């Protein structure tokens, strides 16, 4: 399914978060910037409006669990966690430094608010299945959300976990897919197409919804819907744009991961962002 999302206008909060992201890049000069931008609105809505948490008690047993299975999009998650008080904002500007709290992929245990160590792809959904099963055993009402990448869905464990989630009727589990249609090597459809993607999930027993992953109103509406779906796990395929908001890196595989972001490149990115205001 093709979604037209290029017309989406980012609001002031989304633009401000992007400014903050660039300021982090200005310090660490590296990262998966495109991926962090494609999922920024999803993570923003999750932490602003959807999930139940207490940053003063990150291990609160009744919290909702949010796993960023595509760990490389962590800069956006870090920004939201800092904003919500899980750790000081100052940590954001030390990302990837030798003695930093925050690394290039999220790590459970050392970073408050991180529910699972991710980075190697295909791990978050099996872990989410286990968490959703634990909620059922303990008769708790917390929900489990797993945000995966689209390229990540080429991993076999995603589909192993999907079968398992369906078998156990995990209606407390929601998979959110950042379908930005690009992977490191190029367009998904050229490297290894996922289509018919929604049908695949349907055939694995999931309730499937699709939306524009940059539309805050739609995301809020879909993600806050708690209605029971015949005891099915749920997947929300969010159509997104890799590098959303910054034309020079948008859908540009060269920006999948940058290990050296130059001053000139940063100037251009800041200028492009300024133009969105």
């Amino acid at each position: 399914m093709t979604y037209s999302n290029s017309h989406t206008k980012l609001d002031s909060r989304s633009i401000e978060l992007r400014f903050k992201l660039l300021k982090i890049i200005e310090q660490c000069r590296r990262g998966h910037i495109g991926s962090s931008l494609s999922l920024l609105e999803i993570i923003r809505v999750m932490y602003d409006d959807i999930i139940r948490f207490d940053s003063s008690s990150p291990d609160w047993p009744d919290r909702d669990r949010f796993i960023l299975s595509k760990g490389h999009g962590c800069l956006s998650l870090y920004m939201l966690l800092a904003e919500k008080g899980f750790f000081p904002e100052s940590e954001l500007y030390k990302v990837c430094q030798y003695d930093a709290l925050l690394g290039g992929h999220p790590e459970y245990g050392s970073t408050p608010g991180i529910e699972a160590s991710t980075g190697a792809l295909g791990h978050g959904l099996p872990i989410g299945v286990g968490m959703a099963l634990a909620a059922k055993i303990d008769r708790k009402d917390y929900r489990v959300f797993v945000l995966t990448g689209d390229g990540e869905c080429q991993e076999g464990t995603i589909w192993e976990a999907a079968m398992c989630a369906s078998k156990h009727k995990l209606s407390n589990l929601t998979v959110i897919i950042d379908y930005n249609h690009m992977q490191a090597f190029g367009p998904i459809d050229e490297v290894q197409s996922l289509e018919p993607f929604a049908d695949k999930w349907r055939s694995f027993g999931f309730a499937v919804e699709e939306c524009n992953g940059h539309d805050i109103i739609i995301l809020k509406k879909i993600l806050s819907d708690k209605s029971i779906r015949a005891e099915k796990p749920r997947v929300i395929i969010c159509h997104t744009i890799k590098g959303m908001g910054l034309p020079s890196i948008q859908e540009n595989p060269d920006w999948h991961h940058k290990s050296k972001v130059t001053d000139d490149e940063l100037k251009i990115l800041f200028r492009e962002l300024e133009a969105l205001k």
Partner: protein
Amino acid sequence: MRKTCFQSIYDLAGKDSRIVFIGSDITKAGLSQFEHDFPERFFLEGIYEGNIIGMAAGLALCGKIPYINTIATFATRRCFEQIVIDCAMQKLPVRIIGSGGGTVYAPLGSTHLAFDDIAILRAIPDMTIIAPSDAQEMKKLIPQTPDWPGPVYIRLAKGGDQVISKPDESFVIGKAIEKKSGSEVALAATGITTAIALEAAEALEKSNISASVSHYHTVKPFDKSHFLKQIEHSEIVITIEEHTICGGLGSIAAEIIAEASFVKPKKFVRIGFPDVFPDHFGNQTNIMERYGISAKGIESTVLNLINKG
């Protein structure tokens, strides 16, 4: 050993609501009581080992202690990344019980042989690897596992294995057991090869050769101080394992000996599978004997070393 293992886990589950059992397409034998009494904590899952390890990690992240059982080689070779990242890196109490450790599945061929499971897992920080010698040890081991830190791999033997441990013998994770004292030769073994080492030591006594036998049921963390004490006065040191000599007990012993800087060098041999895929079928004993993992193999190795002077 398997039956005792499952019975012990069932006993634990009755006392501790954190205990969860996950099987990957295994026989239900020995598990029906668990399934009947604790159905919400019993998961008989499909043939997706990678998912099962991740799922167990998710359960552990929510306070559960999952015990997983599947065929040893599928649990280790296939799931390496899940064990490393999901379990060990996150320091989670996932317990993996590998059926058919070593060459139990000899007739099924090399695809089913777990002759490298210890080496694979030994590279993982915070991993614990245990190979009990018999069912009696298994009974003492399982109650120690719920609160042991980090992931644990338990290597199951064939079943109906000779019981060599004594009922009153202490069994503590991480602590080797001296099975027999001796002076000239030190035999260090793990799992079911401890029984073979004891048989060899008795045969050597008849030739007036004094051999000690220690049982290193916990291969990681390794009881280095016990090993150094065992070999201190022995000229000959032999390790015996139902495992490749690359990366298992023999390699651990070699590393310790190399770093110990003994004034008088030890004569040291690792008995195990050489760096090959076993090329025959038959049964476990056939395959082990082919590579000298037998009392006779140990005895002739020792005699050769003595005769060489």
